[in-house]
């Protein structure tokens, strides 16, 4: 198979600034998401993800500007998530240069939104964020609002339903593992990846390069997302890709 596994760095953006910071050499302003995006573009990232975590309405508007400026300089796919609630939000992001939008709370609140969004913009541009916490063996629950609000919804049931409604890709994040550096929740990733016929992005918990390999080989993910290991320069995208390739995963090494 010639299709390559993707590595996707994720930038948390608040009021047009990268929140956790990006520790790259040669960045004049590490808090500027556009500069970070350009650096990742050069580093050979396969896609880029912006997560808008602005608390306020005014803060949210700034993401459009960030996406526009990024699209001007980066010629790779861009997914934008956080606060996407209406078809109008999606259209606006796409016109700014986003290729896909990640939807979380709005999909939980009103599942039909995904049908409408996929019908209007095509399945390929609708990514549903499945944020889940483990509640018992082989059972996970959906959380919203960055993992703060529990919903009582079963993650697997939700994931399958979202694909049926038109999600073209699922971003599966373990809220238990997010930020822990302990690796992906492999069982969660695998359970969902094996149950749906759309690509799955594994997210939450990457601390070592082995974790990326595990996400693909054991978790059956089609793409892996990470933030801090790349932002803080612990590993470069090139190192991660080489490591994954050396472990038998097909990677793109064009740069």
């Amino acid at each position: 198979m010639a299709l390559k596994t993707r590595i996707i760095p994720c930038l948390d953006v608040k009021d047009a600034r990268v929140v956790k910071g990006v520790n790259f050499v040669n960045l004049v302003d590490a808090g500027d998401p556009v500069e970070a995006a350009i650096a990742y573009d050069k580093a050979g990232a396969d896609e880029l993800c912006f997560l808008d975590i602005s608390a306020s309405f005014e803060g949210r508007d700034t993401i459009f500007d960030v996406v526009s400026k990024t699209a001007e300089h980066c010629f790779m796919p861009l997914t934008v998530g956080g606060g996407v609630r209406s078809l109008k939000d999606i259209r606006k992001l796409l016109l700014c240069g986003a290729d896909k939008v990640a939807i979380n709370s709005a999909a939980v609140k009103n599942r039909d939104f995904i049908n409408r969004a996929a019908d209007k913009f095509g399945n390929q541009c609708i990514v549903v964020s499945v944020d889940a916490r483990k509640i018992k063996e082989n059972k996970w629950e959906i959380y919203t609002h960055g993992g703060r609000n529990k919903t009582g919804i079963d993650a697997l049931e939700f994931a399958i339903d979202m694909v049926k409604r038109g999600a073209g890709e699922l971003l599966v994040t373990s809220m238990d593992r997010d930020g822990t550096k302990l690796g992906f929740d492999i069982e969660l990733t695998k359970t969902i990846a094996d149950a749906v016929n759309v690509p799955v992005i594994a997210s939450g918990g990457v601390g070592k390069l082995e974790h990326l390999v595990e996400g693909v080989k054991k978790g059956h993910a089609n793409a892996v997302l990470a933030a801090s290991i790349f932002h803080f320069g612990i590993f470069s995208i090139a190192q991660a890709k080489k490591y994954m390739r050396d472990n038998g995963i097909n990677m793109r090494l064009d740069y």
Partner: protein
Amino acid sequence: MDKNREKIVIIDYGSGNLRSAQKALARAAKNLDNRPEIIVSSRAEIIFAADRIVLPGVGAFADCKKGLLAISNIEQILTERVVRGGVPFLGICVGMQLMADYGKEKGKHAGLGWIRGIVKKIKAEHKGLKIPHMGWNTLNITKFGNDKISKSENIINNKSDFSPHPLLNNIKLGEDGLHAYFVHSYHFVVNERKNIIASTDYGGEIAAMIGKNNMVGVQFHPEKSQILGLNLLENFLRWRP
């Protein structure tokens, strides 16, 4: 508008990522001596006067067709300028698929009928592959323009005896070559192999680039394909078919 500069028109019919296409073409144009103007427009007279036409497309086949037809006389304009007038044309993703006889996404819908073939759902699930075909894949060049060879002979392994389509100039192809970014669930099944310029592999052969005469369509997104994409767009801007 400056009369001496070429006008590249990206057709705006309410679909797709026009800004990305525009920015990528503008970047590709920087390497040209006489830099063209990159215009995004839905106005019939501007499209008619274009020196080169780009038709992007994201979403469902029928929606894109409907959007395109909302531009007055667009089919006549495209026939006049592209089919008869020889204006270089580049269709991207659904813009490429619209060159087919018809598409079978959400019902059967007529395309522009420029290149014989049908747009069908990708069949790869039986091989454990996910749909959409989403991500980076390599391109195999085929013996473009030659329909007297079988499928297996069609893929070029020894590139020395063959020069690829002008839009693939200076682009490293094949398994070890550069990658293009794909995201699609339907693909263009061409009737005549001579219309395939390059293919990719996803549970079987997928037409990645098709064409004849002055028209080319790419299933992948050159505006999102970094080096490969920018080189291809620059080649398109230089192309004199």
